[in-house]
């Protein structure tokens, strides 16, 4: 499964002076929520059916922290495609993943998040599938692996569309697929001893090149205080009646 290190943005996004990234001095980091569910799902499949799960990330040296978190969740080993400070676009990211996957033992299933929390490009998993000539199903909230096939449930308006594909295959998943586990302390300690293999891929020139980031306008509302404590209830109901919902 492939994961990406992203900041935990909290309540307000503040940019660095060069407008190239989010100011993260006081922020923690995590992996995108969809990917947490991807890691959990892969670990469960291996727990139930045997085999091995490998977690891969492309990111700065600090992204090893996120790989260790995934190892603590139960992944068997990790591959770190180490980058410098530059951001990689989706095509460059997919190319590096493809090169790595080709060099490994053949995988039955490649799991991606449907879109990353930060860049939100909706495409890396699909690009990898095309390059490897594999079928791909995206946006999954249900996944069953049986007899070399994947039954994949994609959430659509009013229900779920079900796909049935032969492995090897690529899937991209959404949060809600499962409830990821919190790793125990012993699992975190074991994760520190699991292998993380480092490689340095070459970045192809971006065709979608970030120039600068902009915090959108319209976040500067200031709420009208209707009151303090339960005594505010009559005023709240008044407002609800004005809006036409009470």
């Amino acid at each position, binding site marked *: 499964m492939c994961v990406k290190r992203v900041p935990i*943005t*909290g*309540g*307000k*996004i503040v940019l660095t002076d060069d407008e190239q990234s*989010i100011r993260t001095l006081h922020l923690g980091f995590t992996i*995108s*929520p969809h990917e947490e569910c991807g890691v959990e799902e892969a670990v469960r499949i291996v727990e139930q059916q045997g085999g091995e799960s490998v977690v891969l990330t492309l990111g700065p040296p600090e992204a090893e922290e996120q790989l260790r978190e995934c190892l603590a969740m139960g992944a068997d080993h990790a591959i770190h495609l180490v980058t410098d400070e530059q951001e990689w676009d989706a*095509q460059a990211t997919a190319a590096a993943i493809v090169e790595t996957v080709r060099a490994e033992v053949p995988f039955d299933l490649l799991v991606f998040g449907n*879109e990353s*929390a*930060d*860049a*939100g*490009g*909706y*495409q890396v998993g*699909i*690009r990898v599938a*095309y390059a490897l000539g594999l*079928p*791909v199903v*995206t*946006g999954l909230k249900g996944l069953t692996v049986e007899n070399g096939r994947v039954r994949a449930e994609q959430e*659509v308006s*009013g*229900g*779920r*569309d*079900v*796909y*049935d594909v032969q492995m090897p295959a690529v899937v991209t998943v959404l*949060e*809600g697929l499962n*409830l990821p586990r919190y790793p125990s302390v012993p699992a975190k300690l074991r994760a520190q001893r699991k292998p993380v293999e480092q490689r340095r891929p070459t970045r192809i020139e971006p*065709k*979608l*090149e*970030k*120039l600068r*980031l*902009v915090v*959108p306008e319209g976040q500067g509302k*200031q709420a*009208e*205080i*209707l009151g303090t*404590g*339960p*005594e505010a*209830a*009559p005023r709240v*109901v008044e*407002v*609800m*009646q004005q*809006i*036409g*919902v*009470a």
Partner: protein
Amino acid sequence: MNVLVFVEPGDDLSRQALGFAREIGDARAVSVEGAYAPAAWAAALVDAADGADAIVAAGSVHGNEVLAHVAARLDQPFAANVTGIDGDVVTRQRWGGSLLEEARVQGSPLVLSVAPHVHAADEAEAQVDTLVAGANGSPQVVDRVEAATGGVSLADAKVVVSGGRGVGSAEGFAIIEELAGLLGGAVGCSRVVTSAGWLPHTNQVGQTGTKVSPDLYVACGISGATQHIAGCKGAKKILAINSDAEAPILASADYAVIGDLHEIVPAISAELRKARGT
């Protein structure tokens, strides 16, 4: 500029994408008939795009997926959820719209999806050509599971009453459910709540949950992380109930009540009953 627009019949976001396409060039709208099969549909679009300078679709589940297939097939960049374009520089959404990015795109054709609810829908009667996708052996829908019905759907609710960390426990949601019920609304929650297992993910409002657009959104004990705001900023009005007068949610809310939600929420329910004489 010749723009090929992928539309889905009856889809409002597709009409918005068409509106955007008409702003930037001569648009030709196409849809694909038959059961949804993203890889095969993308192949049909690529065939139809001969000579087009841009291929555009809605930044919807299907729009983003089909265009990612198109871009992978053509080995071209794909800019998802674009809000504007100026020459070869696109502005697009990151973080579910909490942040914008200006990016230079070198694509021929340009492949881009249009961010939802940024451009007005094209109301003019558009001619839509129907394409037929070839059976290229790609994954396609083999079955359909209908969603369980009953209750008010979160995405369509006129009122959503949501709880966050401040609710404190699964049991604590009884007062949230009571107020939502009185208002004929749906119950929502923040990501903290689903991660703790207090409510299922189907109740989660946010960037990685459901995006809601009610007339009133009541945020109880929710601090207002960008992850959450990305899901509720479509609400016409937001009422925050929070013990912290400095919480970030107040910068996204229209109204606020400061104090303990465990006292305030039942008081509002009682006041509603009183006002209705029940």
